[in-house]
């Protein structure tokens, strides 16, 4: 560091006049800041234009009746009032939270259990890990269609075929208002599992093995080790995955849309998440203002859920 500063000071000197060079006019600290900011300017500008401007635009649109065709007119809170009175919105709201509240814990517990045991497996370890990761690499749309066919009633649905052989009664799965949401949730959990396992395993590997050794010498059982050492030290990983997976479930769309294309979000709206409702309002009915209001609500929910989770799982000093 000192060498660099000296070099910088030296390079300014030969010119003689202190006014001529950039180097002399500003201190080292300022110069470094200018460099840093000139590199940061690009992503910041990009974010401002691509992310923040449309976000603010969406907030503005949510107070208008814009329908793409005619100029937008400000209508105050009418879209929000309509939204909170819309029974479909509450149904969709409930669906979205069902995906979140049931999907997130199940997927995290499953991912942790698999990661915990996979971490101890040496035989074909990489191969098994790759197998778990594979669904994460596959296109959601392609996966959704394969699952859609798995769930079909006889004679084409594989799951029902197996049920038939085992003497279990046939299930309607995605043709039922009670089972459809959970049938789709299973595929979403399965698709995200690989990613969560990899992250959990990285977290597990990061725990120093000396802790375990010390615990074993002190005669702690496996269960106590898990509770007192593994889980607490895995907290940063868990926080990240809870937030990440919650946002994923709150924004679920691909699976639902592709598994129910001929009755999107059906049957009877029983699988429809908020994002699908926004999509339909915007691009089927072209009620852009109304769709923007729904987007703002989704944004607020995402913000609250994320902040809440960070707060609950925060580091206790």
């Amino acid at each position, binding site marked *: 560091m000192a060498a660099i500063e000296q070099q910088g000071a030296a390079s300014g000197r030969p010119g003689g006049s202190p006014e001529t060079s950039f180097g002399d006019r500003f201190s080292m600290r300022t110069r470094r800041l200018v460099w840093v900011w000139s590199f940061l300017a690009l992503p910041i500008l990009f974010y401002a234009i691509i992310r923040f401007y449309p976000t603010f635009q969406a907030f503005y649109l949510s107070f208008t009746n814009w329908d*793409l065709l005619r100029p937008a007119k400000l209508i105050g809170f009418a879209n929000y009032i309509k939204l909170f009175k819309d029974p479909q919105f509450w149904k969709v709201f409930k669906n979205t939270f069902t995906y979140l509240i049931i999907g997130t814990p199940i997927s995290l517990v499953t991912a942790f259990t698999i990661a915990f045991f996979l971490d101890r497996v040496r035989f074909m370890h990489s191969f098994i890990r790759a197998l778990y990761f594979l669904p994460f690499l596959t296109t959601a749309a392609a996966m959704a269609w394969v699952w859609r066919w798995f769930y079909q*009633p006889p004679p084409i649905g594989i799951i029902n075929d197996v049920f038939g052989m085992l003497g279990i009664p046939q299930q309607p799965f995605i043709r039922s208002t009670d089972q459809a949401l959970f049938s789709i949730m299973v595929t979403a959990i399965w698709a995200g599992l690989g990613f969560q396992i990899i992250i959990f395993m990285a977290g597990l590997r990061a725990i120093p093995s000396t802790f375990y050794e010390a615990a074993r010498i002190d005669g702690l059982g496996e269960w106590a080790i898990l509770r007192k050492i593994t889980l607490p030290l895995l907290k940063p990983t868990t926080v990240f995955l809870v937030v990440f997976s919650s946002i994923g479930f709150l924004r679920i769309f691909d699976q639902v849309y592709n598994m129910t294309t001929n009755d999107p979000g059906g049957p009877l709206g029983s699988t429809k998440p908020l994002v699908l409702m926004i999509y339909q309002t915007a691009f089927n009915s072209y009620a852009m203002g109304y769709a923007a209001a729904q987007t703002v609500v989704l944004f607020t929910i995402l913000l609250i859920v994320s902040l809440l989770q960070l707060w609950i799982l925060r580091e206790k000093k």
Partner: protein
Amino acid sequence: MRKATLFAGLVAGFSTFAFNAAQAVEIEYWQYVFDTRVKAMDQLITEFQKANPGITVKQVTFPYADYQTRVIAANMAGNGPDVMQLFYGWLDKFVAGGLLAPLPKDAFPHAKIESDFFPIVKAMKRGDEYYGLPTAVRSLALFYNKKLFTEAGLDPNNPPKTLDEYVAAAQKIAKRDASGNLTVEGSTLDMGGQDHQWWREVLIRQFGGVPYTDNDQKVAYNSEAGIKALKFYTSLQLEKKIGAAGFMDEGQAAFRGGKAGMTIDGTFRLGAFKSIKDFEWGVTELPANAQGVRSNYASYFANGISAKAKGEELEASKKFLAYITSPAAMDIWLKTVGELPALRSAALTETNLKDPIYAPFLKGLEYAHTTLFMDEQAQRQNAIDMANRVLLQGQSVEDSIKQAAAAEQEIIDAAKP
């Protein structure tokens, strides 16, 4: 020296550009991507340019899911098409948004439109103006699997003519395995396919009612006829057990896979069904009711002229629209895409009327109705939900109809410009 050459080059470049601009006018034609439609249009453009050397037509296509948004967004940006294809059900939206110009009466006199085209062209009229003309039209018919007919002991050359015969034939064809699972459907039941049109424009009328009044702005099916029509439709699955919604995912897939005796579908399905190799299939008119009343649902994509086309481009657009709605163009369209000509004279030719496949669709056109949808997807969804409430949740037909009628009226009112 080098500068002079450069300058000369620039001048030459500009002058050829100017020369071309004075000589030729280029117009843009927009439609959505569908292989045969794009090919047919390419062929039409080649023919048109041969006959009109001063005009070039550029075809621009977008995926169907994006198409409407693209047209509307391009219009906002001020660089949309000169001539565009649009579904008849989008007309209100496009007219309200000022996307379309009324067809000039000098080139397209109303009396001639009304006498030459099938009556469903009326759906392109708002107030005193027509806003577009179709090249081709589509109607519904009953497709049937001749192999399954023979296996069930039915005459494959004598498909059902009435609703009673349709149900009887379907009951004979339907098969179940030992545990009662459907293995072959008598007829497909798929509200998300064409069944909602069948219920809306055909069954309700056959049971003595009308689906809407006031130019389709007022829902009228919360009536005796509407209830009877939905009872008939849902009883096909619940009582007569000729099929099940969701069997093999989609009705058309079940028929294609040889697992359904009959299906109601449109002309646009002909292309997909033509590649069926495992069995022979036939087409017949939609079944009549006991009194012989028939109805059908017809729809079409029309071609309209953009409101922004002016001067030379407008003249060229008029010529192009006149060509693509001429009998010659319709003939090319029928051969390439398989959709029926929109002009009576081009459609009702002796060859077409003798054609075992086209004839039932053409007969259907004569008595077809065209629903003036305000928000097609939402209205379709509403019909799907109406049937599902009865099929999946056991709601009574009366309640489901009442709920559907109220919800659809709301959709229509909300979509009014």
